[in-house]
């Protein structure tokens, strides 16, 4: 780095552009993934037999197919039935659905950890099923699922790099361009890796803050 390659405006701006695209991919994917995870997780616990089967089937498929294959299907496969997605939309769709499948398993486990006595008490007070889920079990399940779901979001940050496989040029994609232009593969990907490390560190710090803020007596995650 004797010639300060990574301080060249061209390189810095390319990396910044890539980083912004990455963040634009990660944030909505994390939000949609979490929403899907909560809904599918709740259906997997409280749905009737048919709905449970659908929820399980979703998890089976979206956890079972390699993410790259899913992205290829959304981006290269859907045009065969006349649906054209931009690389960005295909990527967010693929990440959300895949992340949602993983999230739903954490959420499902968390719902199951709420003692059945509490659901009985809620029913006995006249709560409808949906209100019981919203006001009694979800607030507890959410707290219990948070460490696992946080883990999944950290993972999402890293697999967002797969977006460049469907030509959505995010951080890794920009890095690949810089690297092949300059032949500085090692340095480039060291820098890229460091940026991901910073992103995951920030995310994990935020998630810990959230866990801490939601902590209640009886729900301690830290000793």
């Amino acid at each position: 780095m004797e010639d300060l390659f990574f301080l060249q405006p061209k390189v810095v701006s390319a990396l910044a552009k890539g980083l912004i695209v990455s963040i634009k991919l990660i944030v909505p994917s994390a939000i949609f993934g979490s929403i899907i995870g909560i809904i599918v997780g709740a259906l997997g616990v409280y749905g009737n037999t048919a709905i449970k089967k659908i929820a399980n089937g979703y998890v089976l498929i979206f956890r079972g197919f390699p993410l790259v294959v899913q992205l290829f299907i959304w981006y290269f496969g859907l045009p065969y039935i006349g649906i054209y997605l931009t690389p960005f939309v295909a990527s967010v769709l693929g990440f959300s659905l895949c992340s949602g499948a993983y999230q739903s398993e954490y959420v499902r486990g968390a719902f199951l950890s709420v003692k059945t006595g509490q659901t009985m008490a809620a029913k006995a007070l006249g709560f409808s099923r949906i209100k019981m889920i919203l006001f009694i079990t979800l607030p507890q399940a959410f707290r219990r699922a948070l460490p696992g779901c946080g883990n999944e979001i950290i993972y999402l940050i890293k697999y967002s790099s797969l977006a460049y496989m469907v030509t959505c040029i995010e951080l890794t994609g920009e890095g690949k361009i810089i690297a092949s232009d300059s032949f500085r593969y090692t340095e480039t990907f060291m820098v890229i890796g460091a940026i991901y490390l910073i992103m995951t560190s920030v995310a994990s710090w935020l998630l810990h803050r959230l866990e801490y803020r939601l902590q209640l007596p009886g729900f301690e995650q830290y000793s």
Partner: protein
Amino acid sequence: MADTIPILRIENMTKRYGDNEVLKGASLTINRGELKVLIGPSGGGKSTFLQCINFLVKPERGRIWLDGKEIIRTRKKEINKYRQKVGMIFQDFNLFDHLTALHNVRIALVRVKGMSKEEAQDRAVRELDRVGLKGYMNQYPAELSGGQKQRVSIARALAMDPDIMLLDEPTSALDPELISEVLDVIRTVRSDGMTMIMSTHQIGFASEMADEFVFLEDGTIVETGPPEKILLNAQYARTREFCSKITELYGNSFS
């Protein structure tokens, strides 16, 4: 005290789990202001019977009338309405772990009854005061003793203004020295005129408070009658056997 229309009437209730017939056609009628105590060996169907009364467990057969009106149990909304009028106290308290004592009492008032938050808050504070826990409003269940938790759960049920309360062994999960604080609260609620069906092994307390004992064994109501009759002069040998064992253990107020 007794109305002509019973507040709750249960007719011929049955429940089976697989091959195991837990309730074999139990019927019970209770008038406003009465306390009926279910006694009988564990596994005899007391809990199942109470849980069938508010459909927490779905009975196979059986009809229920609340205040003369039959409850159609295929109508979910009707069941939710009915449950608001039937308070339930569980052996394990079943407080909502993520809510303070105050919010445990308040939540159903706001979310089920649709009260305003302020109104619900006032009511919840009043009920907590009634069970002697005004000073513990902001504690979470994890910070309360078993007796305190059970008192919160009683306040939570009372706040709904139920027509009747079902108490499923309310003191069985408590340390001996915590039992009396819960029994005291039940005594107060009873003297305020609440109609109750309670299963318990606290035979001394029950015989002092109950209008009637209902001896339930093997899914069948074997015998009913005033406490002193059941305890001292039961008709059936099986009832006598059970009562002599339980009075030996817990004592009774007639001997």
